[in-house]
């Protein structure tokens, strides 16, 4: 009876999205390893290929889903802090016992089985954040609440940073969307977007020209204000002008600090990754190689794409890390603009649906968690595809459900299905 009601309340549409994504991802992973030589008979199920291994990860993800549904719904809120604590300890341990891969100590593993604890950190942080904000007494307008939220978010970031995994830390900025929904001032969002705009302008333009430009802009704004104002009140004009000039000076301050940060604080390879973004021709052979090859692969897809298993850039290893972080190149090359657009629309529909599901939750905890799920997946989607088409710097984060790899598939599956479990029980909660 209870099973019955569970299956009736599960959001099968979201599960359909999920299945579509992982199967499409699996096929594209096969396309990457595919060898066109007719003498090499390849099987998508071959366990020595990435596609075969991914199938194992998918199978184990299904087992995880069953486990998530089997666990009592109260477990997730009850153990939110405990799980958060455990993952923090594991992340700390990884700093010391982790395997060193590409200069970062972010993997732990036995033999060929390896996981990246940071992948799971965002998941349990999401649970802990939802638990804390879900409390009736929590209010983002209160200073205490804000401090604790900051603490919950910054703690894992600190340790992940120590692992040398910058990309993993940036994911935590996704939580701003959650906080915005829960009452944080929209100014944080606006200032964030404005900072990014100024940041990019700083990269593209000379800092002095940019400063003069900002001052002229401020002057124009003041003059327009004086002309358009109906009744000239000296005092109010002074206050308005002072505010505008203060903002302009603040922006100039940001320009100079960004410039300083890029040239003095960032490591050489990080600076180059940012610089190739605004100028892809800068360094086609070395730092710019990956982003250039990625754009070449996607660009070669044209309108309709080369066809499944027909992409030359995909098959012949022109794009490094193609089955993991750069899986979108395969889609772009083999399925063209049509295929990419279809995927993006599907993904956006999926994210919009999660938001809608979150809003229908009666319990605050479940709603906040739903927003966490949507925000985290959205951030990965935005940055991952953005870096393949050259609008974001290359930070190694996967495309959820598509990229090859167990850690990411597992963590996103758990992330999503805990929420679907909550959603399936939304009516029971009311029955309390």
């Amino acid at each position: 009876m209870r099973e019955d009601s569970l299956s009736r309340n599960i959001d099968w549409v979201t599960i359909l999205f999920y299945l579509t994504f992982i199967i499409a991802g699996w096929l594209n992973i096969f396309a990457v390893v595919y060898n066109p030589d007719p003498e090499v008979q390849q099987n998508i199920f071959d366990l020595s290929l990435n596609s075969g291994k991914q199938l194992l990860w998918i199978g184990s993800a299904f087992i995880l889903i069953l486990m998530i549904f089997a666990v009592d719904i109260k477990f997730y809120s009850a153990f939110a802090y405990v799980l958060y604590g455990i993952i923090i300890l594991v992340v700390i341990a990884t700093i010391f016992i982790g395997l060193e891969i590409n200069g970062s100590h972010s993997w732990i593993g036995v033999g060929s089985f390896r996981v990246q604890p940071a992948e799971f950190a965002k998941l349990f942080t999401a649970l802990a954040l939802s638990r804390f904000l879900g409390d009736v007494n929590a209010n983002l307008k209160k200073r205490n609440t804000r401090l604790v939220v900051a603490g919950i978010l910054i703690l894992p970031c600190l340790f992940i940073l120590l692992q040398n995994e910058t990309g993993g830390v940036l994911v935590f900025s996704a939580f701003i969307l959650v906080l915005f929904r829960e009452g944080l001032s929209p100014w944080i969002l606006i200032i964030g977007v404005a900072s990014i705009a100024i940041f990019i302008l700083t990269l593209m333009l000379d800092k002095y020209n940019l400063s003069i430009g900002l001052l002229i802009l401020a002057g124009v704004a003041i003059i327009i204000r004086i002309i358009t104002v109906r009744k000239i009140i000296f005092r109010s004009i002074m206050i308005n002008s002072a505010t505008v000039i203060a903002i302009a000076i603040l922006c100039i301050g940001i320009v100079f600090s960004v410039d300083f940060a890029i040239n003095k604080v960032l490591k050489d390879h990080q600076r180059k990754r940012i610089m190739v973004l605004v100028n892809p021709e800068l360094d086609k052979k070395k730092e710019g190689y990956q982003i250039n090859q990625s754009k070449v692969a996607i660009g070669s897809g044209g309108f309709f794409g080369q066809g499944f298993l027909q992409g030359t850039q995909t098959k012949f290893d022109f794009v490094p890390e193609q089955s993991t972080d750069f899986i979108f190149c395969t889609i772009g090359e083999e399925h063209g603009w049509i295929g990419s657009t279809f995927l993006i629309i599907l993904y956006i529909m999926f994210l919009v649906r999660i938001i809608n599901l979150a809003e229908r939750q009666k319990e605050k905890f479940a709603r906040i968690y739903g927003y966490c799920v949507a925000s985290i997946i959205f951030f990965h989607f935005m940055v991952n595809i953005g870096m393949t088409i050259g609008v974001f710097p290359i930070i190694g984060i996967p495309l959820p459900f598509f990229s090859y790899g167990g850690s990411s598939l597992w963590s996103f599956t758990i992330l999503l299905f805990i929420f679907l479990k909550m959603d399936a029980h939304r009516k029971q909660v009311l029955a309390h």
Partner: protein
Amino acid sequence: MRDERKLVIQIIFILIGFIYIVRLFFLQVVEDKYKEEAEKNATRKIIEYPYRGLLYDRHNKPLVINQIVIDLMVVMKEMKVPDTTQFCNAFNISKEEFIDIIKKVKQEKGYNKNRPVPIIKQLSIEDFGKGLDVLADCNGFYRQERTIRSYPDQSAANALGYIGEISKPQLEKSTEGYYEQGDLVGISGLESSYEKYLRGKKGVRYIMKDVHGVVKGPYRGGDQDIISEPGENLFTTIDLELQKYGEEMMKNKIGSVVAIEPSTGEILAFISAPTYNPNALTGRYFSKNYDSLQKNPMKPLFNRPLMAMYPPGSIFKLAQALVGQQMGVLRPSTIYSCNQQAVGVKCHPHPSPNDLKGSIQWSCNPYYFTVFKTIIHKNRNTNKYRESELNYDDWRKHMATFGFGQKLKIDMPNMKSGHLPTNAYYDKIYGDLSWKHSTIRSLDIGQGELLIVPVQMANLAATVANKGYYYTPHFVKRIGEGKNARILKEYTQKHYTSIDSSFFQVIIEGMFMVVEHGTAYFDKIPGIEICGKTGTAQNPHGDDHSVFISFAPKTNPKIAIAVYVENGGFGAVTAAPIANLMIEKYLTDTTSAMSRWMKKVVTEKDLLTKNKKLYK
């Protein structure tokens, strides 16, 4: 307010999605440079070189064939040689050479350890076979076959020509866009003139390669590939046996032999002496050998039958006799005595006086002095100079119809026209109306400003044999085989001289007497009616050049020949025996004891050593 915020977040999602879709539209649909770069990344264009056409002699014996050679290739990344000593022994190189080769290969531009590179080039199949056992134990080695030109009989080098990499100026000159740098092209001889037919059509193959340059099979299943078409075979007019026979006699001499079939204009033999081994200009020693041939003072690469301009000497008397008759100043019965003192011309002892036939038989110089004088001063009722000018112009027009002073449209490049002086030429030297017969009298016996190339001499013999016409001498009977076989129309056309055919009989009788009982009496071949004419051309460098033209048999001639031997002395001494022996060889294919002795004598005549000091 909460609903608003939900909407804001959803709009942010949609906005980002929209921006990406637009961005992708520019990247994938609008911009073309990524597609080009992708193609450049993953495909490689491979030119498939066609099989070049072969050349055969008139009896379908191969003159030029393609020989398969093997380049031993290695992929450095995979290379494993368990026993270097054994390897080096198998391929007949020293260990140091082997190390040196590997070092050089690695320094080459565009070297890639994943891609096969040649380490030992152009091994013969036999040599490669010797190394097979050793290669079985090694790793990373591949073979690449290619073909080079090969000349089984090492004969007719200058006629056949050679192929080599296309030169920069040639590449720029070629407008059809067929050639690319590094392509092989016919550079001289028939290889050059029939390049268009021999080369075939290049093919193109597109293959895929991965990021390391490793080949990954055909691109798009080979849909865009173009299969190469082999070149067409040439069936030449050369008689290989005759060619070799003549070459043997000419080997230690400088000069030319050209034999033509008068009834068709087909060139039967084409000898430029000294010659070279055509196999020297194939394959990997091309440039080294080319350099040494180029520096050789004997100029073996100089295509003498077409390019060496010689004074013809007394063989020109035949043309004089014909033009004299045509101009009405000479008849078969015209008799002049060999009056050397009176005309101031030297001659050799012979019966005198002579009629026209006798003048040819004994090659009487004063006779032709008088003939030419009567031609030039044929009465025109004007002054002597005006008369000379008008008559010389007539004379020259007649001479030009024999092909003198012009390039015959022979199917071989770089023919020289020789020199048949024009009125303007003499005007320039002596002034307008300031020259007469006594000024240009050396022309009477084929000396002076007159220059003729050996092919024109052979053509003269063929024209006399045909009694007044010739076919343009040519080398190719047929292009291609089976259904596609073609002949070139321009070589089936008769070219008439301006001389009535009735004037030829007496000349032919005279030529017959030259060999029967005249200046070339010693070179007579029993049983064959040969008509010939000796020539002994003076030159400022050394001994006289020995000249002889002839045709045979007297009725229905099958072969006309011209032999020119530099510094060979009297025409009957060197040139005539070579010509007549070749006629015998061609017509009978048997040789008498007498001819074998004659051949031995003429073959052993080493003019190169004798005249060594001339070629320094």
